[in-house]
């Protein structure tokens, strides 16, 4: 039940409210289920043991109807208050504003600020500070997707051409996993997202770092990798801030070395996996939109050496 992707282990205000409501429903309906079973057992037991008076039967049925009414009242009132608390959770504080764009099959993440120079982009990873409300604007670029971060909030569908949003209020730090929750094509099952709840200090440091351009290559191998990335097809789709790579079709790679995972939380971010992914993306996620770019193995090593330094 405890885990990085579990609605039963809430780490945010919204998930906690929903989880409590689920507990209430489970308790009330469980109690009634138990009562029904007891009555059923009793009926079986007394089948051959004479009849009862009409008076007592009427009393029992009336009592049963009263109990059901009471139970429904409890559930209705519980849902009402859960709904109100969901609507007002985190109100009154300025939220962190993020736009998440779902694409087949990865997540584009844009941090938005009133000051345009404080905007930056990343992909497949959201960092948020603990205790501060987060307002996520959801956009879909192609088909219907759904964002579900079970530990923090309920799911929200992303329908093309229809803006939606999702509010979060993380209560404790940790590393969580979100998933696309609406079938969206071949690689739907491999379309996940890392959600990292930082302390406010960690978050501020991460944000300050993300606003910097990518670090320049240092060693000769890294320089060779840089030349390949900016000279070949990579740069046509991917962006690395501060370099001639400014494609907008694929995930932003400015901080790719610092992410926990690769390919929409499909692979651990390790050198060997990075090389395998670049060498043949279609072997790992068949049908994904990244083509195989032919390059020599020396170039491949150089590219992964360079991408690893993008922290």
């Amino acid at each position, binding site marked *: 039940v405890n885990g990085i992707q579990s609605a039963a282990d809430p780490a945010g205000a919204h998930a906690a409210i929903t989880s409590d409501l689920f507990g209430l429903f489970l308790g009330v309906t469980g109690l009634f289920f138990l009562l029904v079973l007891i009555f059923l057992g009793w009926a079986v037991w007394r089948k051959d043991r004479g009849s009862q008076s009409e008076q007592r039967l009427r009393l029992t049925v009336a009592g049963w109807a009263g109990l059901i009414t009471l139970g429904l009242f409890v559930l209705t009132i519980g849902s009402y208050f859960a709904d109100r608390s969901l609507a007002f959770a985190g109100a009154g504080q300025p939220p962190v504003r993020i736009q998440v764009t779902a694409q087949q099959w990865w997540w584009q993440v844009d941090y938005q600020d009133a000051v345009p120079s404080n905007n930056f982009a990343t992909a497949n990873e959201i960092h948020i500070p603990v205790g501060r409300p987060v307002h996520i604007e959801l956009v879909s670029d192609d088909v219907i997707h759904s964002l579900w971060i079970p530990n923090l909030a309920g799911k929200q569908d992303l329908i093309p051409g229809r803006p939606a949003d999702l509010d979060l209020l993380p209560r404790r730090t940790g590393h969580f996993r979100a998933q696309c929750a609406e079938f969206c094509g071949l690689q739907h099952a491999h379309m996940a997202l890392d959600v990292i709840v930082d302390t406010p200090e960690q978050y501020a440091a991460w944000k300050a770092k993300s606003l910097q351009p990518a670090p320049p290559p240092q060693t000769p191998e890294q320089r060779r990798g840089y030349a390949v990335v900016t000279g070949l*097809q990579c740069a*046509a789709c991917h962006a690395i801030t501060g370099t001639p790579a400014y494609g907008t079709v694929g995930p932003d790679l400015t901080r790719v070395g610092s992410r926990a995972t690769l390919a929409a939380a499909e692979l651990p971010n390790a050198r060997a996996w990075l090389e395998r992914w670049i060498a043949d993306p*279609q072997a790992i996620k068949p049908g994904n939109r990244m083509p195989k*770019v032919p390059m020599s193995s020396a170039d491949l090593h150089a590219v992964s050496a360079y991408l690893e330094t993008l922290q």
Partner: protein
Amino acid sequence: MRSLALLLLCIALGGCDRESHETNDPPLPFHQGDLATTTTVMAGGTRPAAFDPRIEHYQKNAWHVSEGQRLYEEFNCVECHAHGGGGIGPALIDDEWIYGSSSPQIVATLIQGRPNGMPSFRNILTEEQMWQLAAYVRAMDGQLAKDVPPSRGDNLAGPPPITLEKKPKLHDSNDEAGAR
């Protein structure tokens, strides 16, 4: 009766080829020297182009055509060619082009670029993507088999190219008289 039904089923299943797609195609051989040349006008008609298996491979497959459509939007072909109607660049919904309108010729145009604005997409698109794009562009001017491209596009479309239609009959007063 049963054998007829079986035959019909086989024919129907044969049609499913257009949807199949290998996500990991083995790379098709391609060298700089292979680049198609533009059509040259010769006495007695043009020489038929050499057979290229890639033409059929990409043009007969709905998946490749739809990938081509995605690339057409993502790599901003729309900027100059609009959705086929042209503007800054030439229209793509007709079928007779300056630098040739066969798939290999379109790929050559994508690789080399052309004077007066068409940029080279060498090292921007992979070779497979260029063939997909070429297949989609061919779909725009109605040159693919009817079952491959979607029957109705997402964008405005013109009438089919005149050159592909039967020549309209000249006005014939005798016909008109006969009809009466």
